[in-house]
């Protein structure tokens, strides 16, 4: 996190805000709710209260403005600049302006007002932009399902550096951005996609191409706003050019980078019994057309040609994959090996000799 130059802050902890006008894009009640939730993001983690007033001058005046609105920081039409806010202080200090030329929403279409408001309020309270790509105070916009939003730890550290900890008995903590070369790095799921490797973790994924040394960390929502965070298993069916992504008892299908269906399908359509609530890991063997699903200490085998589960499954993982215990985090096949991820370790398994031939760090693909 970074504090605004000169460390400006509000001297009072009980601040007022006023919504000066509304956008025609949204129902006024939804605007009120988005703004209220944005304030709550900060009042939950710092000893600050925000009271709404309806007349007169509030500490934080929030308005929708268009083009040059006479504050020396004109807006630029759709996209580009979305909003801005002023550091703590009198008059225009603390005020938040949203670009009315944007399409504001309470969901994933256009720009989500809650996120933008929460980010701008960070400036109103004295925070500058963070260089942590997972932080709310990172300068570029990215969408997260509002119900899944938790204020990242970087922002909590920032606001508490200015105002101290919240008065409540429970000290809130937030998610941290994964570090590519962290030796303790674990993954939720790994899959190939047209020659690239995708490593999923929380609301992020890394893209790695075997010919390119650099690895790229992105938000899942950057490419797929309709996908949830926390993908639990993934595999590529090279034949059909599909990538399957699993979370809980649902799955989504990609064709290249495009979602094939707008809505997820049920894993029970694949033939899983109802007592299977989620899949830990999966990979597909393109030579045999068999897909392997790992759940707890067992695995299922699915025939992609017949589109049905093979008979005689589930079987114990340890029986057919000696050296691989239970709770596989992620798995994928590359060349003649299968790579199992368990915690911060990666097991290179040779299916021909049926044994683990090498144990590596989970992030060995990232050239750390």
């Amino acid at each position, binding site marked *: 996190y970074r504090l605004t130059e000169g460390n400006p802050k509000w001297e009072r902890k009980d601040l007022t805000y006023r919504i000066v006008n509304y956008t025609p894009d949204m129902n006024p009640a939804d605007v009120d709710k988005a703004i209220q939730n944005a304030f709550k993001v900060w009042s939950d983690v710092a000893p600050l209260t925000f009271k709404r007033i309806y007349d007169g001058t509030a500490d934080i005046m929030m308005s929708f403005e268009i083009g040059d609105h006479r504050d020396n920081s004109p807006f630029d039409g759709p*996209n580009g600049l979305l909003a801005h806010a002023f550091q703590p202080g009198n008059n225009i200090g603390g005020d938040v302006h949203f670009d009315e030329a944007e399409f504001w929403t309470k969901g994933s279409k256009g720009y989500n007002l809650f996120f933008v408001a929460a980010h701008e309020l960070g400036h109103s309270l004295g925070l500058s932009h963070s260089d942590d790509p997972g932080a709310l105070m990172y300068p570029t*916009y990215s969408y997260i399902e509002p119900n899944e939003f938790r204020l990242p730890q970087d922002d909590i550290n920032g606001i508490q550096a200015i105002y101290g900890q919240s008065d409540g008995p429970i000290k809130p903590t937030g998610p941290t951005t994964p570090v590519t070369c962290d030796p303790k790095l674990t993954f939720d799921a790994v899959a190939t996609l047209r020659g690239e490797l995708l490593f999923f973790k929380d609301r992020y994924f890394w893209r790695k191409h075997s010919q390119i040394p650099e690895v790229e960390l992105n938000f899942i929502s950057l490419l797929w706003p309709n996908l949830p965070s926390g993908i639990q298993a993934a595999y590529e069916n090279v034949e059909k050019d599909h990538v399957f992504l699993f979370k809980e008892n649902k799955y989504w299908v990609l064709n290249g980078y495009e979602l094939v269906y707008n809505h997820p399908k049920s894993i029970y359509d694949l033939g899983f019994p109802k007592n299977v609530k989620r899949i830990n890991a999966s990979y597909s063997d393109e030579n045999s057309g068999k897909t392997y699903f790992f759940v707890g200490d067992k695995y299922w085998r699915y025939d992609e040609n017949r589109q049905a589960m093979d008979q005689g499954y589930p079987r114990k993982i340890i029986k057919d994959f000696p050296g691989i215990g239970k709770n596989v985090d992620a798995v994928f096949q590359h060349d003649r090996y299968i790579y199992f991820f368990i915690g911060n370790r990666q097991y290179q398994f040779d299916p021909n000799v049926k044994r683990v031939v090498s144990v590596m760090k989970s992030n060995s693909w990232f050239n750390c």
Partner: protein
Amino acid sequence: FPVAPGTEDEDKNTQLVENYLRNFYKFEPEKQSPFKNKNTNPLTEKLKEMQTFFGLKVTGKPDVETLEVMKMSRCGVPDVGQ
């Protein structure tokens, strides 16, 4: 004379880079001293600052990744100072 292919795009990108650095990284080319060391290009230095902030490869050049980040929707508050 006809405009050479690509020139228009290059001009647009140059404008994008200058505007971006002006808005968010205090880039003020008109304020550069004529006596300043000619070996350091202020635009390159500002680009490096921006690339470091966003965790990009620090080249000092407006490469594809850098231009992609500059085209992303964002907050209008500068990344450095006020």
